[in-house]
């Protein structure tokens, strides 16, 4: 089962290598990995999607916690969260089907970011499923995809501030 693990880490050079090295060195399966800044410039948030049974996920969390630069490990699986992925899709279009594609894009709330004589770039944000669905619908037209990993945040007042550690 996929688990979403959210980390707060010190924003040091090499911290990503340390985390990815740990995951690969111990043979853990990682589906996606995304990182970005937080309100505190010294702290980076990393969202991991990992696959494994409970014992493995438990080990992943414990091993991540051992790292000196990891400040907080939260398992967002089965929590009340908002999960998002981001995708850029480059499509080959002809004058005949451009309208149809724009219509589809609207249904999915995707934005048209670029229109060329025979190409188009769509920007889409949503759940993994939503992105997969649009990709499937446009399968014949897509020539290139750039997708981010998953990011996730818990609903409600609770927030993973460092001071709560």
């Amino acid at each position, binding site marked *: 089962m996929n688990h979403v693990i959210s980390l707060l*880490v*010190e924003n040091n*050079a*090499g911290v990503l*290598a*340390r985390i990815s*090295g*740990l995951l690969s*060195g111990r043979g853990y399966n990682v589906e996606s990995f995304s990182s970005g800044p937080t309100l505190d410039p010294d702290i980076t948030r990393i969202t991991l999607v990992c696959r494994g049974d409970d*014992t493995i996920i*438990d*080990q992943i969390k*414990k*091993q991540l*916690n*051992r*790292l*000196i*630069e*990891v*400040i*907080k490990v939260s398992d967002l699986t089965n929590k009340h969260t908002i999960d998002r992925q981001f995708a850029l899709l480059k499509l080959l279009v002809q004058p005949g089907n451009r309208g149809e594609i724009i219509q589809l894009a609207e249904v999915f709330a995707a934005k048209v970011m670029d229109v060329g004589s025979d190409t188009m770039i769509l920007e889409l944000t949503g759940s993994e499923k939503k992105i997969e669905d649009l990709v499937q619908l446009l399968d014949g037209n897509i020539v290139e995809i750039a997708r981010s990993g998953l990011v996730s945040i818990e609903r409600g007042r609770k927030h993973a501030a*460092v001071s709560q*550690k």
Partner: protein
Amino acid sequence: MVFKGAEMVIESLRKEKVDTIFAYPGGAVIPIFDVLFDADDINVVLTRHEQAAVHAADAYARTTGKTGVCIVTSGPGATNTVTGLATANFDSVPLVCISGQVPRNMIGNDAFQEADTVGITRPVTKHNYIVTKRENLGKTLREAFHIASTGRPGPVVVDIPKDILYQPLEETYPEDVNLQGYTSPGKGHAGQLKRAVTAVNDAKKPLFFAGGGINVGDSSKIFRNIIEKTGIPVVTSLMGIGALETKNPLNLGMIGMHGTYAANLAVSECDLLFGIGVRFDDRVTMNLEKFAPLAKIIHLDIDPSAIARNVPVEIPIVGDAKIVLEELYPLLDKKDRPAWHKTIKEWKDEAICINAYEGFNAKEDDSSYLMPYQVISTVNRTFPDAIVTTEVGQNQMWTALFWNFKEPRTLITSGGLGTMGYGFPAAIGAAIACKDRRVVAIAGDGSFQMNLQELATAVKCRLPIVIVILNNGYLGMVRQWQQMFNGGRYSSTHLNDRIKADKEDKVSPDGSPDFVKLADAYGAEGCRVRSKSELEDALKKAAALTDVPIIIDCLIEPEANVWPMVSPGAGLDEMVFCIEKEEE
């Protein structure tokens, strides 16, 4: 005060109360060695290989509990430390390794003697740093010493570019560290402690499983008090040897692949197994399905990731062994368990009969080869209070099984990583750490050759280390496996043709060196022994030495094996005690 980077490194050593370092110079660390030239308060031990510097610093730390320190140069200097760092990391040894790096403006340019030290050592250290700003140097060194020595100890690498070593800065070495992602556990969870106490007090056949964490955590005293109070028997891991004295009737010895008969049976029969500072490593548990089948398991460890990794644990306790054991002591009952003690006594008696079978008690006047048991027990009688280091393989297992250890930190051995070539440099570190004690390095003829260049260091430092080579002409442990599981096909394990050589008192030219001549070449003492009486003479000579190492090259039975043995895939109670010979 204004310190150049190199001066701050030495200032850090002084502030951390480091009086001995193990080091090897090179281009990138010349500025540090230049400061050391005038530092009369710091003893610099020059090894002959960086790997040995790390092993020696590691053993210095294991024997004293202080943080070991080594300094090496960039590139090959740093890469040579990898085996040593991994060894220390596995066995939770506090170590700070300072490595030189090429100047900052050359990093990434494939400069001469450049290596990505932080990248290479990341998976084999507790933590590592590259110092990228002069103003971070003091803080980084302070953090390195803090991280190395607290919690579950381990090695920390600090990689310092050469230009930073020259850069001056007005600086005070910091006293405090502020690491928001790092805490070290102390007291145990009250609820879990309560459950553990009830479980232990209610158990009919309880058993303690003592690991290296007791020795590392300096909790052997309180642990012994608990054993004395409760009368609960103890098994140990390899690293847990010394937590309780070998001779204590409640000590059943080591468990695992080469565990003792009584210890392995006790684990299989107990109804409660209380592991302290152990990892339940695969060489200990063997077949997990058959491990402690009747037992409820309590596991106390300072590292949460060690708990419930390999075996299901009923009562996990995260905490510092010493603090938690002190919490437990008043709560554990003194209780008679006559049936359990009777069973254990029977196993111990049976073990003596089994041992006699494999020549453990070989005849005193036996004119054939020495048996390993004879060698270990005879050396033990001459040096009963020695610190013992081992290499890895048969020599290590025989030492663990046959030596009578009295205290923690007296068996210095590479347990987790199993590093051949560890024992002799470790003996140097131990001898330097404990000038008032004799150090015995038990070695095999194979593993000794992995770091024999350190004879130069031992001679130079005038260390009366007793190097006992159990010379069987083989890489014995692998040969034993080949004998048992590969139909006696001794592929690449036969080191020399010693059987013939022995008769002519020469060593075959294409085999191992003549260790006696080797000792002589380095200015050490050396003798070759074939019998118990020759061994005793050699030990008399060794006992009288005060400032020179001695090699005692013991020609042992070439195909002597380590027994008992639990074959891979078998349960701990499925031990074998000899090679099963086909009927003729």
